[in-house]
């Protein structure tokens, strides 16, 4: 009950943020631009629209999660609204979870809106609704939930600018760490390989949520892979939220 009240208020606050609308219009602009880009392409134009469209949703969704997530807790502390809130009989964990869920709801609605624009553009081009594309968008949404948790974690102990940079770093590492898997295979077994394996487990692998290629090229996606990716998202998000709670639990609000 307390968590949903805080989540509702966070959603109300997020709705008022102009950055959200600015990013949405940019995303819509990019989705429209993909249609024109397709005109310049030799070959399968629809693939270009799908490729650019999904990448736009992923990129702008990530920016929304980072820019709004990093300001979330910091603003409460900076504007001191947290004083009256935490003076009530609520647990700090409830506050943090409420903030997280409020932003996840915002991201869900914005991803939904971007998906609607994307499907409309595709429909105008092909006159068919490609439901499979929603699967790729759903996994982008899971990735954005994780990014929201990351932004929230950083916003519990640093300023929005630094938290944004750290979150962006996390995003970049997350999309490049898959190459470590190849490196591990090539390194001879021993201490070095074990260390690399530990590092690979600790570092995020956001490519787990990337089903864009499979969807665009209509390749089969094993259900097991979808299940593992979903589970990875849930566990990693829970782990990051746990870290955020540990930091936030004993923080002084001076």
């Amino acid at each position, binding site marked *: 009950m307390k968590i949903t009240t805080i989540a509702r208020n966070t959603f109300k606050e997020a709705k008022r943020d102009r950055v959200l609308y600015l990013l949405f219009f940019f995303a819509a602009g990019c989705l429209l631009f993909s249609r024109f880009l397709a005109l310049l392409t030799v070959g399968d134009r629809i693939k270009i629209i799908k490729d650019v469209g999904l990448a736009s949703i992923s990129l702008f969704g990530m920016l929304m999660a980072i820019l709004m997530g990093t300001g979330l807790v910091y603003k409460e502390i900076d504007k001191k609204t947290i004083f009256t809130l935490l003076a*009530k009989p609520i647990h700090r964990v409830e506050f943090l979870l409420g903030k997280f869920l409020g932003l996840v709801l915002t991201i869900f609605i914005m991803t939904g809106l971007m998906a609607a624009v994307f499907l409309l553009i595709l429909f105008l081009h092909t006159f068919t609704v490609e439901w499979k594309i929603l699967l790729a968008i759903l996994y982008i949404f899971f990735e954005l939930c994780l990014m929201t948790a990351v932004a929230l974690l950083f916003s519990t102990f640093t300023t929005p600018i630094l938290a944004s940079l750290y979150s962006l770093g996390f995003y970049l590492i997350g999309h490049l760490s898959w190459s470590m898997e190849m490196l591990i295979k090539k390194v001879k077994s021993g201490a070095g390989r074990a260390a690399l394996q530990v590092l690979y487990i600790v570092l995020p692998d956001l490519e787990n949520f990337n089903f864009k290629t499979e969807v665009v090229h209509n390749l089969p996606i094993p259900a097991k892979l979808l299940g593992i990716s979903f589970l990875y998202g849930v566990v990693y998000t829970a782990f990051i939220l746990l870290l955020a709670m540990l930091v936030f639990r004993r923080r002084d609000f001076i």
Partner: protein
Amino acid sequence: MGKVLELEKVYKSYKLGFIPKKKPVLKGVSFHVNEGEIFGYLGPNGAGKTTTIKCILNLIFPDSGQITIFGEDSLKPKARRRVGFLPENPYFYDYLTGREFLTFYADLLGLHGRAKQEKIGYLLKLVGMERAAELQLRKYSRGMLQRIGLAQALLNDPALVILDEPMGGLDPIGRKEFRDIIVNLKKEGKTVFLSSHILQDIEMICDRVAIILAGEIINQGYLGDLISEKVLYTEITVAGVPEVDFRHLGESVSSSSDRVLLKVYEEDNIEKVIQLVQQKKGKIVSLVPRTETLEDIFVNMVKNQ
């Protein structure tokens, strides 16, 4: 009378600067607040009043010491179930209207349905904010924010109300109204913890006080015990007699065209001043014996420290 709030040897220091250096803010603060009283927490700016309140409410964690609210450890959220709090500078979500703001906190406290609406309506009336209920908080003046903040603090019908400098930004009428509300809270059986540096407010309504200076409690007790009843001097305003005639009887504080304000320290001289005024066919405008005030005690303590 049971103890509603108890602090025992509370220490708190902040780490400040690029190379963190410990700065002690509270140095073993101990006091208790009894049920049903208005407790004044007095101290100059930077003495540690707000830090103490933040420790009580778990917004910051003491380095050592024990804080109990209604016998419960203050670290547990349920200890704050019967506590209402109004912060020093009211910082609230400014995009909400007054009614939305109260609804948000009422939801957090688990109020719902008709009881919630009735409570919000009652509190808006109590703090005189019915007319501004549909206005966004960003359009509120400081005094209005204090009022809506007080309403928020009373939503859970608290047994202990903690007010941090509640009358700071209020005009004289607002201060009087706030004082009346606080006194009424006491009449309803609530305990009030009032932090302030405005001595008149404390003196007017508090039963007991604690004085904090540089993070240490330097005095505490019943107001009547702290302030002596002894007359320090008598202020006499005289009209129609020149100032020079009184020089041997008392100290002249001010004199306008025909009025003189005298400070008379010796009791015998009061009689002499009255006789002199009668002889010179003048008039006594006022005669006020001045006893020791909380301000006198406070200033003396601060100077001694």
